């Protein structure tokens, strides 16, 4: 259940931002979850709902954007459908993962500032 420690890092980061900008409230937090980020979006949300009480995120909605893992040939650009061997046989090169497919990113924090 590493989702709890990830949510902790998220909330810590938002807390720092709030301090830096003297924000009075946080309305929304947007996180993108790559299909290969090793994070279960459902568990992440549950962890967030549990953990945010008493933190700056207490009233902040969590928006989760899932990013599919999309692989393509770096030489010819052909996309490799999910489940296929991760290589382009005509070009003889390994497939490359598009950005975001394996990342867990804090995208946006919407907050009220004076």
């Amino acid at each position, binding site marked *: *259940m*590493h989702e709890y*420690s*990830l949510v902790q*890092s*998220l909330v*810590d*980061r938002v807390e720092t*931002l709030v301090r830096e*900008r003297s924000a*009075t*409230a946080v*309305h*929304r937090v947007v*996180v993108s979850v790559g299909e*290969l*980020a*090793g*994070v279960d979006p459902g568990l992440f949300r549950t962890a967030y709902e549990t953990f945010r009480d008493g933190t700056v995120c207490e009233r902040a909605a969590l928006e989760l954007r899932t990013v599919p*893992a999309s*692989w393509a040939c770096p030489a010819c650009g052909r996309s490799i459908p999910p*489940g*296929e*061997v*991760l*290589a382009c046989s005509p070009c003889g090169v*390994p*497939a*490359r*993962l598009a950005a975001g497919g*394996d*990342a*867990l*990113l*804090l*995208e*946006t*924090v*919407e*907050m*009220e*500032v*004076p």
Partner: protein
Amino acid sequence: MCTTCGCGDTHLVPVELHEKILAGNDRVATHNREHFTAAGVLALNVMGSPGAGKTALLEATARASGGRWRMGAVSGDLATDRDARRLEKAGIPSRAITTGQGCHLDATLVHDALHGFPWEELDLFFIENVGNLVCPAIYDLGQAANVVALSVTEGEDKPLKYPVMFQAADLVLLTKCDLLPHLEVDVEQIRDGLRRVMPHPEVILLSAKTGEGIPAWVAWLEARRAALPRRHGHTHGPGGGHHHHH
């Protein structure tokens, strides 16, 4: 009070960040990597399911190395120091990292474990992660490479079921191959699964028990050591080059 327009209201601003939630861990991992690189130590993150044969692999490595490398290890364990003690017995100076509830190691746990451990004198530093096919993959520790042990007893479907772990692997060791005659498992099917989740599938079939495949693993280690950036023969700046471990 808004100082820009004087409207007296607070403003709702979207702060665009687009930053990794694990950025804090990644910073410590980068710091660890700098330590290892500066000291010329090949650090490997050894992962795999509980019981995949990670500790047995390291024991077999000690037997096969014939003293050619100075090795050391830290091993992550929820509650015990059993693996560290097994490794000590096999001639690999080791230290346990007890993670309690934590199902994975992180860069700070590894950094803290370096205190008072003679890691700087090593050629090979093994970080045996907590037995788990999911979370360890997402925490960078500062290793030079990820090695994943997958025993042939775990079933052909594991690569497809745990793509995150295998995608992050630089090398997959199919362990316990001495058991193949007793199993109905198709190694070719495991390899095929790996090709569908790993863009650079590098796989060695081996047995810690019989030693089959261990020479290929030793050769892989040799090659990774040879590929390390050359260790600096001098120190730079006042007080020496890489900072002493704090």
